[in-house]
């Protein structure tokens, strides 16, 4: 197969008719790939004034130009209308999907319409089929994976199986898409977006081959980058303890949310620290395809299932954020209990962060007497794993009116039952960094409402002076840097290797000189386009609120300065409006 640097090659599958077509999207030097390509596709094929569950809304999976060429270019962006916010949204995941899409010969898959029956999509370089899989209805994520692996068997190891669980089928607003068992398109409800299409899973076989770029430049560049990643020690921390190494430092800083953010420090952090997980439960590390780092940490969950010595064991992936959401946030201080909750979440196909934070709200609401067992069915108490385990199931099944509300988000439940002031929602259930004013603003307003759009948390940590102008300047600049990486679909851990200059050289060596020469203009174009789409699909910058709980937080710097937070918010809101609508 050959790649044309001027076009993105997109497989468009229309599930209502069952027909597919290959689209050639021009002007690649402007949209690059990944985040940019997804936005361009939504601009053309999306329906701005229809809700997330409208079958016409596209569900997009896009990779970048460098996927397959260099290490750590291993991510996929999923672009969709969020069932949670209603807005244009993105979620990113690794696993084997990126390389599978590349070697199947595409830069993106775009799925529109709704299948008549529950279906799976089976794609390869020379195949594209929609299979009815009604027998998978209600099946959990792991069982579904097993069934899906029957498709494309001869490409074992060179294919990816993504799927949804019960939560996605039922349209839970924070259902996720599971990628190859251990990775996820986690946030903002991509799983429900897939469920709306009656699509249970997608298997992509990366069974094609491309000619290498001409000349020596690519080989040299590849060697250079590979050495930088594997020999300099800069990636060591991601492989060693992985992201959970952050638990202790953040707890020391009084920046780790505990018990629904009622506090930011607890002496028992050691029980759920990265060190404890590594020493007691770590089974092994695995990697995304094409990445020699191996940052995916798999823990061993051993459970007794009968009175005699009868045990079963499960493999559960863990990371910093999941440990925060289903550990400290729920007051859980046993690493094995965290794994048990994560395992259940995984099976049901829920976003572990939103589910954990939503349950944390429910636990505090119980504590305060706003809801009782009549609503919660089981005891939801900080520190007690069993109740939360049931809570997760009830969210996925929509057991009663309370859990149905909770499955639309903690703020949705709080609006019905009370307790909005302590719902830890910043656009969606919060990420695990209670670092201060800039982080709270960055996620409340930010594109993905997460810690991944800009390094707001880093600004809080690195700056003692309160300079709102500087903070917002930093956020905008940092966002643009991330947009380059997110359009290449590189792993954000690789930012130290792929600086702007290196990216340009890497692009040129791989045959994408046109993109390299236009990188600044493309970055600005994509940043603007993404904000435009978000605003046109319902994001109202002026309506953003930061709940009271976030103003009560005490960190190592002391209490939150609400004046400063308001100032940062106002400036950031203005900047976003400028990007979306131009200068007034």
């Amino acid at each position, binding site marked *: 197969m050959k790649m044309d640097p001027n076009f993105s090659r997109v497989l468009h599958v229309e599930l209502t008719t069952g027909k597919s077509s290959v689209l050639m999207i021009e002007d690649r030097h402007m949209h690059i790939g990944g985040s940019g390509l997804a936005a361009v596709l939504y601009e053309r094929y999306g329906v701005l004034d229809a809700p997330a569950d409208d079958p016409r809304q596209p569900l997009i999976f896009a990779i970048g130009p460098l996927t397959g060429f260099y290490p750590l270019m291993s991510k996929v962006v999923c672009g969709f209308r969020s069932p949670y916010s209603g807005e244009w949204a993105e979620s990113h995941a690794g696993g084997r999907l990126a390389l599978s899409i590349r070697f199947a010969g595409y830069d993106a898959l775009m799925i529109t319409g709704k299948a008549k029956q529950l279906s799976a999509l089976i794609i390869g370089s020379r195949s594209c089929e929609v299979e009815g899989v009604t027998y998978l209805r209600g099946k959990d994520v792991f069982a579904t994976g097993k069934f899906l692996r029957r498709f494309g068997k001869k490409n*074992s*190891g060179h294919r990816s*199986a993504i799927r949804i669980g019960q939560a996605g089928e039922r349209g839970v607003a924070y259902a996720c898409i599971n990628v190859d068992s*251990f990775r996820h398109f986690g946030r903002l409800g991509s799983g429900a977006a897939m469920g709306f299409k009656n699509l249970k899973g997608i298997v992509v076989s990366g069974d094609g081959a491309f*000619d290498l770029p001409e000349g020596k430049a690519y080989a040299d560049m590849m060697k250079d980058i*590979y050495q930088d990643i594997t020999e300099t020690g800069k990636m060591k921390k991601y492989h060693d303890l992985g992201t959970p190494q952050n638990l202790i430092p953040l707890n020391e800083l009084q920046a780790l949310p505990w018990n629904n953010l009622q506090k930011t420090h607890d002496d028992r952090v050691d029980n759920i620290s990265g060190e404890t997980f590594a020493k007691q439960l770590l089974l092994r590390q695995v990697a995304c395809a094409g990445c*020699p780092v*191996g940052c995916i940490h798999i823990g061993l969950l051993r459970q007794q299932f009968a009175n005699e010595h009868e045990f079963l064991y499960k493999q559960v992936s863990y990371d910093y954020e999941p440990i925060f959401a289903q550990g400290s946030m729920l007051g859980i201080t046993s690493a094995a209990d965290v794994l048990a909750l994560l395992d259940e979440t995984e099976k049901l196909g829920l976003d572990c962060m939103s589910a954990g934070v939503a349950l944390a709200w429910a636990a505090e609401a119980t504590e305060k007497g706003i809801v009782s067992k009549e609503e919660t069915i089981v005891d939801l108490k900080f520190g007690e794993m069993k109740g939360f385990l049931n809570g997760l199931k009830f969210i996925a099944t929509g057991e009663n009116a309370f859990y149905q509300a909770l499955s639309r988000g903690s703020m949705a439940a709080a609006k019905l039952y009370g307790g909005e002031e302590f719902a830890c929602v910043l656009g969606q259930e919060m990420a695990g960094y209670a670092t201060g004013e800039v982080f709270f603003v960055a996620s409340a307003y930010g594109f993905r409402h997460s810690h991944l759009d800009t390094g707001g948390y880093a600004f809080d940590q690195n700056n003692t002076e309160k300079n709102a102008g500087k903070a917002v300047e930093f956020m905008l600049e940092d966002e643009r840097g991330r947009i380059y990486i997110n359009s290449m679909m590189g792993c954000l851990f690789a930012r130290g290797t792929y600086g702007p200059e290196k990216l340009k050289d890497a692009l040129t060596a791989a045959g994408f000189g046109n993109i390299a020469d236009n990188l600044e203009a493309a970055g600005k174009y994509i940043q603007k386009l993404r904000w435009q789409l978000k605003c046109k699909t319902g994001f109202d910058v002026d309506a953003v609120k930061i709940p009271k709980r976030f103003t009560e937080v005490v960190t190592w710097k002391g209490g939150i300065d609400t004046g400063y937070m308001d100032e940062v918010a106002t400036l950031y809101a203005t900047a976003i409006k400028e990007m979306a609508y131009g200068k007034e």
Partner: protein
Amino acid sequence: MKRLEAVRMEQCIGCHSCSLACARLVHKKLSWNTAGIRISSAGGLTTGFEAHICVACDPAPCAEVCPTEALKQRKGGGVIVTHDKCIKCGKCAEVCPVDAIYYETESDLPYLCIHCGRCVPFCPHNCIELRDIPAREEG
């Protein structure tokens, strides 16, 4: 004589750096398949990884069925591959007992390990090694 062996696959993290390197450096392709070493998981990622790689048979069944000597017995085990001589009959891939030959459908050519060891430095977990073929197996 040396042969490539996947000696520590229990340490494998499934990064595919080895296959991608072989495809690039030996077979001049950007691909997962056109490589002498290919990594698969037996049943999803929970089961660990196995390597599909030529085990250097002697005599080599693939060479025996090859009608044009595109695959020729290598001394000590394994084969020497000459794509120019290949008439694209695909018999070698069928006969290999360990699924070590990838028959690429677009170029219609077989791809397999030539025991050069160029993949070895790319494995971050030290899973693969180029080892001498033990004397008793030779000849």
